[in-house]
């Protein structure tokens, strides 16, 4: 699909989220709620004692029962539908031909760790903080957006072998 | 033959431009029209309720009858209830508008086109306040409430705490 058309579609989805639920989109938040409930399931007393996890279990709250977790469930569904319609469903590892699969997967893992860690710190990732934040003109949105893209450009040189 | 063809092309030129920009026009023009209607609709409420109610925050829109002379400009006195008619002998231009008719086109036009302060008067200060707010929200400015109860919002009694009431009496 033409990127401008896809962008318009994404913008309309974001507008719908604002109109229906009074909030923006998010992705890292959903991941966090999954982790929180996982920690709660494994070691409930640790979760309740922790100053970080504790607030998600206050008053018998159920962290999985959250707008964001249902939303990321939808993201996976929507991606699957789109991939099926465009004939892109296929198990594969996407990488530059000059690097090994292991190297690609190690970097993907590290990237995931960094991205979600940073997103927790900045209270949102590219969708939750930067995209949704810009759509409501929040300073946080613009600052996070500039920091993400600026830093990615800065690091791009060191990881060029992974991609091109 | 060739002359006719080039003429035809020339005549179609505006259509071509239109076709080229049709999507832009199809989106921007309706938006522009809607905005224009919304902005210039005389009887409708204007955007941003706060902006139009600012004069009411500090009482700068209240004048007592004796102070009306201090207002600069040609005054228009709008009397809202009948029974007070003829009570004033001011130099102002006086009109009687029953409150139910205040949003009628000719009355809104009269107030909108009047240069100088508009004074609302009613024997009931609450009614004046409500009518002031509704007129202000249609975007008419320089409108005042003329009242003989300028001290209306001042507390006139005294509250005497009950000295025998202590924590032990309540729970």
């Amino acid at each position, binding site marked *: 699909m033409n990127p401008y058309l896809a962008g318009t579609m994404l913008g309309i989805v974001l507008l719908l989220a604002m109109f229906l639920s009074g909030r923006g989109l998010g992705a890292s938040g959903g991941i966090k709620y999954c982790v929180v409930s996982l920690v709660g399931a494994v070691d409930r007393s640790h979760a309740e004692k922790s100053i970080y996890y504790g607030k998600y279990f206050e008053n018998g709250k159920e962290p999985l029962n959250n707008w964001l977790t249902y939303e990321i469930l939808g993201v996976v569904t929507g991606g699957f539908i789109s991939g099926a319609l465009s004939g892109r469903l296929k198990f594969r590892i996407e990488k530059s031909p000059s690097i090994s699969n292991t190297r690609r997967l190690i970097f993907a893992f590290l990237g995931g760790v960094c991205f979600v860690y940073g997103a927790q710190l*900045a209270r949102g990732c590219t969708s939750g903080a930067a995209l949704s934040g810009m759509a409501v003109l929040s300073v946080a949105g613009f600052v996070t957006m500039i920091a993400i893209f600026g830093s990615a450009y800065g690091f791009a040189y060191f990881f060029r072998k992974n991609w091109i | 033959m060739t002359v006719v063809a080039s003429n035809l092309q020339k005549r179609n030129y505006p259509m071509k431009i239109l076709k080229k920009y049709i999507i832009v026009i199809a989106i921007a023009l309706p938006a522009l029209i809607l905005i224009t209607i919304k902005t210039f609709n005389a009887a409708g409420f204007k955007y941003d309720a706060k902006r139009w109610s600012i004069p009411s925050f500090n009482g700068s829109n209240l004048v007592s009858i004796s102070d009306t002379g201090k207002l600069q400009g040609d005054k228009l006195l709008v009397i809202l209830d009948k029974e007070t008619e003829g009570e004033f002998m001011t130099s102002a231009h006086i009109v009687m508008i029953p409150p139910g008719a205040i949003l009628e086109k000719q009355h809104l036009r009269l107030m909108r086109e009047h240069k100088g302060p508009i004074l609302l008067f009613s024997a009931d200060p609450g009614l004046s306040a409500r009518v002031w707010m509704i007129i202000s929200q249609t975007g008419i400015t320089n409108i005042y409430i003329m009242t003989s109860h300028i001290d209306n919002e001042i507390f006139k009694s005294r509250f005497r705490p009950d000295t025998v009431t202590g924590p032990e009496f309540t729970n």
Partner: protein
Amino acid sequence: MGPISSLITMPGWLEMLIALLIGTGFGFALEQAGFSSSRKLVGMFYGYDTTVLKVFFTAAIVALVGSQFLSYFGLLNLSQVYVNEYYAGASIIGGIIMGAGFIMGGYCPGTGLSALSIGKIDAVVFALGGFTGAFLFGETYPLIQNFANGSYKGAEKIDEALGISTGLFIFLLIVAAAGMFWIGELAEKKFARPDITGEI
């Protein structure tokens, strides 16, 4: 009017159904934009593909312009729409860490999820990394708590912070975005890598 959630108290299941449907639209749009390909995403940083820039700014501006129009017509009450809170230090450092994660992993959380849905194994690993990252954050939170909650500026809006009118700021943002789209397309021609971008 609007947001609908502030008008009526929705039953929980309806709210979650809306979340699911919005998420579906989100995932669909991301995948259609080609964001399920990490090499396409990072192309942004090597100049051979600027889809990220185009989609990202188009989406933000469409939602921004749409919400402002709805608000002008009294259909959406913007004071009931969440505005992200600004913690200056955490936003900047968090953003820098995210940028590093982006160039290493090739995805961001949203695009990673849409990529794993079409069977990208690297995206599955990226998501596993994401779970680990969230867990690490939870465990290290006591150490960085002060920093994470420091320099709190509240739900600040950028037009107010800059002291210019909302409409003017939006206009300038749009002009800047149009300029970036143009530059982006020039860069795509200059750094073209048809072997990568042609894949999807």
